[in-house]
């Protein structure tokens, strides 16, 4: 008996030793895991994408209401003047006072500033700070998205030192009151929970400490079952051994899961604050902090958007606990409990708010950075998106299509729009469809359709560069033609009105968009010259060398067409359209600047003549419909385009600040019944009016001569002619021959003696 007993004992000791060794080994493995995972970058941080900041300076064309709109977009709150604080503004007649948020811009930090702005009608008149005038200041830029891995975690890191003090204290009070006293596990809490659970007969309370919760989320999110509990306990204690309480608390603040936004997981209080309340953590009130802390228990169950009543109850319970613990006073409690759970709808789909633009940013970034860098290193991407221009473009597409469909009995039209800066070729707005907030087929980038007559300016530019041969008043033959194609077919282009118009001046052939005159001109100039001009305008891919190219039988996306027009809008300086201005590391180190770059210019004088002809198109030609919406005193250059059988409707045009392209059509390429003038044009005009398009300069350009031309013979005339038009010529190219109506040379000779 005793022999058996002693054997059993020995066996037990051996087994115990083996178990102990195994446990030691396992603990060492976990320890290694803790130290490697917590060292270095603890989280994969998605790249953060920012819109361009609004620059404020005296003289800026910005109304008080436009500023308020911008402030609201940024999540600034209106408060009485006495309560002015960071992220708030106050309004008083023509004055707005505001306190900006500090922001680390690509060229350095700007601290929070308290500004007073005085407005005139549609103009910012004066900015001052503490009575001193300020000549230039920026608002913090709008965060428009982040590049997180598919099904990935998104977060905005915060430091413990800078979060509102109530957050960590309140969190500890609600989740783990003995946090600063325990060693990672809280036996008392565990026992209490066990008692409660046994009495209830089910799990109603957890005894997990913040440390355990952190460990569970950070290390063990893929494991379930008992062994997880086991590892969790060991890891929690190990974490406490290695790291300070505050460090663990800070990690918790950044790790905690607070909900789901489609495929994006919302992690940490920093992003939670942005996601649910559209403001930085530092600006949250007591009630909002309590709402977030309350959510820790069940992020989807207590989701304040989906279950406001539940979230409110939970919040009020949390607030009551805080009051009992002396964290908040009676007055604060009453005020906070009375508040609605007020979440912001604005950031509901923050990452989907500008999906078309963000997609373009992502594509540009992908040329320079591998995806794992973009999704992990917390890069800060500064882009050129102008939120007010984007808002104008989205509204114009939505309302414009509704209005076209209603007035013409059409349905399921689609559209895309691009707005770029004439100055530096940066993309200011991008709309990929009529539901701009929804990701999906991005027509601005990916819908390639025949561009129709919007190609014609290129044909005319190719001609005008041969300045001795072609001037704006050169007569072109708008006559039928037949071309034998290489494949044996015959190409017989027609005008839109099916008529031919005989001899017409070159500029009118463009402004009235006559096909026959254009094809005749293009063939005379040479397809090779037209294609060369396209390359000069920045087109990099191969262009089909077919006569139908002259009428725009060439598939381009709206963004690609915008690229072609960019050089025309900027006086001949082609610029690659880009959406990124610079990239910084998370710590604010500059990684890369995308500088303003100009390609070798096209001849400025020929471009100036072309722009004059494109202004004729909006004043008297196919583009004149824009002035139903746009101030008629503005000089705007533009061109309509329509593809075969009225499938695609285009308008491309520019003033001195913005260049825009709009496409309207059907996704399935069905006939729309719309021309460029009846489809894309009204959307374009609506968009540009709302965006604040400025007219082209009337300043005479050096190297051009302005000559009165007889509108019958299209030769230089004078006051003796019945009707003359002042037309620009490149110096030295004014025709010698005078109009028949002009005073003869003999009369002029006599004039000298009169």
């Amino acid at each position, binding site marked *: 008996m005793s022999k058996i007993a002693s054997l059993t004992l020995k066996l037990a000791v051996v087994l115990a030793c083996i178990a102990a060794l195994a446990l030691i080994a396992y603990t060492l493995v976990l320890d290694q895991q803790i130290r490697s995972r917590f060292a270095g970058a603890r989280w994969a941080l998605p790249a953060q994408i920012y819109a361009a900041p609004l620059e404020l300076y005296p003289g800026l064309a910005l109304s008080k209401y436009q500023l308020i709109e911008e402030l609201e977009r940024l999540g600034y709150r209106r408060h009485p003047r006495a309560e002015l604080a960071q992220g708030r503004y106050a309004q008083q007649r023509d004055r707005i006072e505001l306190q900006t948020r500090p922001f680390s811009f690509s060229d350095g930090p700007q601290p929070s500033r308290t500004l007073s702005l005085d407005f005139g009608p549609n103009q910012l008149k004066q900015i001052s700070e503490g009575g001193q005038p300020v000549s230039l200041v920026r608002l913090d830029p709008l965060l428009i998205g982040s590049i997180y891995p598919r099904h990935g975690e998104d977060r905005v890191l915060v430091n413990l030192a800078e979060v509102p003090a109530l957050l960590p204290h309140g969190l500890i009070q609600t989740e783990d009151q003995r946090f600063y006293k325990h060693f990672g596990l809280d036996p008392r809490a565990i026992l209490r929970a066990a008692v409660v659970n046994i009495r209830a007969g089910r799990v109603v309370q957890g005894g997990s400490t913040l440390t355990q919760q952190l460990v569970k989320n950070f290390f063990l999110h893929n494991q379930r079952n008992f062994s997880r509990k086991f590892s969790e306990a060991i890891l929690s204690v*190990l974490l406490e051994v290695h790291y300070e309480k505050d460090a663990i608390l800070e990690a918790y603040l950044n790790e905690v899961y607070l909900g789901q936004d489609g495929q994006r997981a919302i992690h940490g209080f920093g992003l939670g604050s942005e996601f649910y309340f559209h403001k930085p953590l530092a600006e949250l009130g007591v009630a909002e902090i309590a709402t977030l802390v309350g959510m820790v228990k069940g992020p989807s169950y207590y989701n304040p958007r989906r279950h406001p009543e539940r979230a409110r109850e939970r919040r009020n319970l949390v607030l009551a606990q805080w009051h009992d613990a002396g964290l908040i006073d009676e007055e604060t409690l009453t005020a906070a409990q009375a508040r609605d759970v007020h979440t912001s709808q604005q950031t509901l789909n923050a990452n989907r708010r500008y999906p078309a633009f963000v997609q373009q940013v992502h594509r540009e970034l992908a040329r320079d950075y591998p995806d794992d860098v973009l999704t992990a290193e917390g890069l800060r991407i500064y882009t050129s998106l102008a939120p007010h221009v984007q808002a104008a473009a989205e509204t114009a597409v939505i309302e414009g299509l509704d209005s076209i469909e209603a007035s013409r009995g059409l349905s399921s039209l689609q559209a895309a729009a691009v707005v770029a800066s004439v100055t530096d070729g940066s993309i200011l707005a991008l709309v990929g469809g009529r539901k701009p907030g929804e990701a999906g087929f991005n027509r601005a980038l990916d819908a390639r359709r025949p561009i129709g007559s919007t190609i014609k300016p290129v044909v005319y530019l190719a001609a005008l560069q041969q300045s001795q041969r072609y001037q704006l008043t050169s007569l072109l033959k708008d006559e039928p033609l037949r071309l034998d194609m290489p494949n044996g077919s015959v190409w017989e282009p027609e005008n839109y009105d099916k008529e031919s118009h005989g001899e017409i001046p070159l500029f009118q052939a463009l402004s009235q968009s006559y096909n026959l005159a254009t094809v005749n001109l293009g063939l005379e100039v040479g397809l090779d010259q037209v294609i060369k001009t396209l390359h000069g305008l920045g087109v990099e891919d191969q262009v089909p060398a077919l006569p139908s190219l002259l009428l725009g039988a060439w598939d381009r996306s709206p963004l690609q067409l915008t690229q072609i027009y960019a050089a025309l809008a900027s006086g001949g300086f082609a610029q690659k359209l880009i959406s990124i201005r610079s990239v910084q590391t998370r710590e604010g180190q500059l990684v890369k600047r995308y500088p303003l770059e100009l390609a070798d*210019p096209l001849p400025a004088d020929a471009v100036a003549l072309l722009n004059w002809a494109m202004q004729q198109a909006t004043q008297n030609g196919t583009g004149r419909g824009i002035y139903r919406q746009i101030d008629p005193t503005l000089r705007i250059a533009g061109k309509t385009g329509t593809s075969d059988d009225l499938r695609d409707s285009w308008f491309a045009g520019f003033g001195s600040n913005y260049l825009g392209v709009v496409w309207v059509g059907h996704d399935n390429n069905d006939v729309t019944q719309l021309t460029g003038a009846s489809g894309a044009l009204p959307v374009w005009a609506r968009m540009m009016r709302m965006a604040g398009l400025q007219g082209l300069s009337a300043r005479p350009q050096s190297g051009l001569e302005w000559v009165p031309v007889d509108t019958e013979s299209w030769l230089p005339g004078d006051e003796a002619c019945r009707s003359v038009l002042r037309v620009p010529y490149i110096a030295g190219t004014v025709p010698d021959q005078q109009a028949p109506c002009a005073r003869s040379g003999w009369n002029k000779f006599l004039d000298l003696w009169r």
Partner: protein
Amino acid sequence: MSFQRLLIACFALFLSACAVSPEGPVWPYPEAPGDDSWGRQPAPPAPGQDSPSDGDQPATSSDEDAAVSHHPTVLALVSQAEEERAAGDLERASGTLERAIRIVSDDPLPWLRLAEIRFEQGNMVQSENLARRSISFAAPGPLTRQAWLLIADIKRLQGDDSAARQAEDKARGG
């Protein structure tokens, strides 16, 4: 179950005492705490760095401005860029001038200054194109003269003497 966990935890605590690294508990920040600019209240900007005040003296000579009037904000930024350039930070100066260009796009002055910076950086193609863009915004005067002389210098460096002479002719108003 709770007791088990407690026991195991105590054991783990005991074991892990041997596992502490010799340096003692550290929170391994990827960078020194305090360097982390994320959301931190930034330091006030260096003088003239961010918001140029109206009191800043433009660094431009008075004769070149005789013909053209510049927006005060543009002048303040041009002068800020001048300081940045003097301090050797050409990239920052470029950024400041681009900012000026975005605010008032048809003022030839910041275009010309940017052309000069590209010249210093050895980027002759951009320098020339920016100088030409500057000329396209200016009435003939001191600014266009400077721009043509810059183009002449570029052409000479490129070994194109006849183009350099042409540019010099233009600078003289030819």
